């Protein structure tokens, strides 16, 4: 297809365009409108979201702290925010093997991991509620539209985004239904795409945002929602743990939360700095559920939803510069998750509030956009968000460098005795994609076959994510060098994409006796792991046609 020139596209202008209807983007949208209304000013704000509806691509544990929500809507209870299940009990375990679990006494748990006062929520539902609040404040929320490209001003500043073209065939040619993407011009564009946002990646490169920060670190979170037997349900019970089945240089942690309506969520986060290319995060998660600690709740229940999403957990040391001419980075697109608390919602929301306050202050003073708002960094430094993330800065690096035992002990001392004020900073600059070892140095892992009761195969899981992409469209997983998967990845690492992808997108199939690399892009749940973990950094995730991807309900 001929490239569509920007002059041929329809354009709309807003004061602020926000990319991504997650907790960060929607909090920013609400706050902008609150500030404008308080000041009696007109402000036009729009939010674009690639999911088919708000919440469709949201996946989180989630136990959340309400601190940022309290600031945004002090009356959230009266407004009916879906924070209905308060944490009633908090348990932390170390799994020694497939049978044994050791409960960590409360007194030895790092203070950051205490959950009293927090709520078990569906982040998807919280975002749906936030979107309703935003719309009633006058924000235009557009689900089903992906922010596909950056719109750059003549001076190189960001001037908005261009939504994806619709109705493009797999060969790149326009179909009868072709509808060109739209230019959304903005004074300021707030990027809240979540972890490893694809425009965020371009911004990092264009403006060198991560030049002075440590390498970002990631985890892959896999999650399922289960209907369990009513007699096994204990609303508000929160279980965390680590250990088995991960080991041999692989780390991570699991969770099981009892929510409302006899449902539990169970999940595993696998740190993406694992070394053995034979490791399959998906299969680790499936076998984890057979541990008696988790099976006691799941037995006799029914799995309802499956999903997966990468998280950015590098924390304070990996935070990039979050402002650049014409825009700001918000939430997990920058990496504001607090790994010591295993929570990112309140921090993402707070970053959204700070971004909104920054942009509104500038615009109220007559700024028409396109400037580099360093004021965001100042507001961040003066906020509890900075204090909280700084205090947790050593948590992840300690676990990476010293392992779960010594690292855990370090974290106990750092977090409980020194409240995160130990006068030293640990760094971990080894990127996750460089951590794989060649297969010849590693042992294959034999995963047990799924039993169809507690554990399941990948394809039946993807089915439960409601994933759908319009069939005839260009592949949204781009290989820079199409020869690398077979040429080097297969030989060196037995093509790890087959195993790290939690949705069965990548396959090595045999055709006429020759291996072939197949990309089943229609299965993609938009977790971004391939963009992160490919050892050759050869895969770039771009947005498919808007509305495609998973359709998560209350995830």
């Amino acid at each position, binding site marked *: 297809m001929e490239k569509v020139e920007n002059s041929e596209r*329809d354009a*709309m202008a807003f004061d602020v365009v926000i990319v991504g209807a997650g907790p960060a983007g929607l909090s920013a949208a609400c706050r902008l409108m609150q500030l404008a209304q308080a000041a009696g000013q007109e402000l036009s704000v729009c939010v674009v979201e690639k999911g*088919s*509806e708000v919440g*469709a691509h949201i996946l989180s544990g989630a136990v959340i702290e309400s601190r940022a929500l309290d600031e945004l809507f002090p009356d959230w209870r009266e407004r009916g925010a879906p924070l209905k299940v308060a944490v009633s009990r908090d348990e932390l375990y170390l799994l020694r093997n497939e049978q044994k679990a050791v409960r960590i006494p409360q007194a030895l748990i790092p203070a950051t991991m205490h959950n009293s006062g927090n709520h078990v929520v*569906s982040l*998807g*539902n919280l975002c749906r509620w936030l979107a309703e609040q935003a719309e009633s404040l006058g924000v*235009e929320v*557009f689900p*089903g*539209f992906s922010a596909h490209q950056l719109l750059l001003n003549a001076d190189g500043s960001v001037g908005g985004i261009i*939504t994806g073209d*619709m*109705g493009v065939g797999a060969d790149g040619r326009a179909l*009868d*239904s072709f*509808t060109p993407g*739209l230019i*959304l011009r903005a004074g300021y564009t707030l990027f809240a795409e979540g972890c490893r946002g694809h425009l965020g990646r371009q911004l990092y490169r264009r403006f060198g945002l991560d030049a002075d920060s440590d390498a970002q670190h990631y985890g892959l979170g896999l999650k399922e929602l289960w*209907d369990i037997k009513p007699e096994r349900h204990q609303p508000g019970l929160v279980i965390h743990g680590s250990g088995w089945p991960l080991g041999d240089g692989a780390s991570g942690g699991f969770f099981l939360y009892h929510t409302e*309506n*006899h449902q539990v969520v169970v999940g595993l986060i696998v740190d993406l700095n694992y070394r053995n290319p034979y490791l399959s995060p998906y299969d680790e998660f499936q076998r984890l559920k057979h541990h008696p600690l988790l099976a006691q709740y799941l037995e006799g229940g029914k799995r*309802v939803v499956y999903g997966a999403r990468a998280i950015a957990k590098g924390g304070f040391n990996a935070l990039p510069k979050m402002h650049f001419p014409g825009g700001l980075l918000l939430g997990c697109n920058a990496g504001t998750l607090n790994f010591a608390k295993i929570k990112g919602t309140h921090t993402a929301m707070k970053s959204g509030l700070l971004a909104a306050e920054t942009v509104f202050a500038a615009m109220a003073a007559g700024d028409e956009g396109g400037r580099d708002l360093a004021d965001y960094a100042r507001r961040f430094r003066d906020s509890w968000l900075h204090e909280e993330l700084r205090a947790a800065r050593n948590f992840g690096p300690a676990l990476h460098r010293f392992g779960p035992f010594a690292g855990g002990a370090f974290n106990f001392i750092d977090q409980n005795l020194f409240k995160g004020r130990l006068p030293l900073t640990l760094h971990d600059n080894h990127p996750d994609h460089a951590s794989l070892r060649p297969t010849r140095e590693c042992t294959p892992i034999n995963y047990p076959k799924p039993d*169809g009761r507690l554990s399941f195969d990948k394809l039946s899981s993807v*089915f*439960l994510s*409601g*994933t*759908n992409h319009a069939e005839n469209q260009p592949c949204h997983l781009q290989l820079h060098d199409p020869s690398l998967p077979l040429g080097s990845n297969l030989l060196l690492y037995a093509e790890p994409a087959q195993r790290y992808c939690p949705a069965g997108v990548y396959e090595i199939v045999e055709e006429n006796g020759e291996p072939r690399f197949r990309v089943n892009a229609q299965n993609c749940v938009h977790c971004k792991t391939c963009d992160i973990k490919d050892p050759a950094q050869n895969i770039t995730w771009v947005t498919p046609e808007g509305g495609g991807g998973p*359709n998560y*309900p*209350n995830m």
Partner: protein
Amino acid sequence: MKIVVAVKRVIDYNVKVRVKADNSNVDLNNVKMSINPFCEIAVEEALRLREAGVASEIVVVSIGPKQAQDVIRTALAMGADRGIWIDSADAEMNALDIACLLGRVVEAEQPGLVLLGKQAIDSDNNQTAQMLAALCDFPQATFASAVTVEGDQVVVTREIDGGLQTLALDLPAVISTDLRLNEPRYVKLPEIMKAKKKPLTTTTPEQLGVHLENTLSLLRVEPPAERSPGIRVESVDQLIENLKHQAKVL
């Protein structure tokens, strides 16, 4: 000519449908809802008739709780002119109730053509268009795969078991749409904003003079039986053996 299009809000076609634990109904908790795909095709056809100069106004009607307005807005964003929402609150309704309500709208609006999806993908009844045609005493053509208006007649190609059937109907008429009639357009972002400002009137069954009297009661909903897992056989002989003695199909 004015066209009335009926649209229904249903469980999204990408969602895996689940049955409530007590088997009383389908579980709609936290489930994504969308415009019924056949209704979307009906809206698209109305738009094409307007673009062809045949229709001048497109009125979209939906019946249901407050969220039914969402699918009216979707149709308005596609290009329909105005909407009517019949607020039925949480009332359980069958196809005849719906047809009666739509009949009152047709009476008031006096359209030249009424377009409906052939069925809703939730209940799969395939009744409303037929009942509506009978109530209005209009000619009907169901399962349309092509529609052309010629003077005061509409020529409709229908998808039937044996192939295609072409009918000519006097207007006003009722048509229900099949899958191959058209491919609905993408909704454009500026149109979604415009749709928020298009007129949408609200009415109720009482105001329309229809007494809802659901004569059906739903006894039980069950998911399809789960297929038992397959087994891998070692040889063709074993397969034949199993087909003969276990499956008893040979």
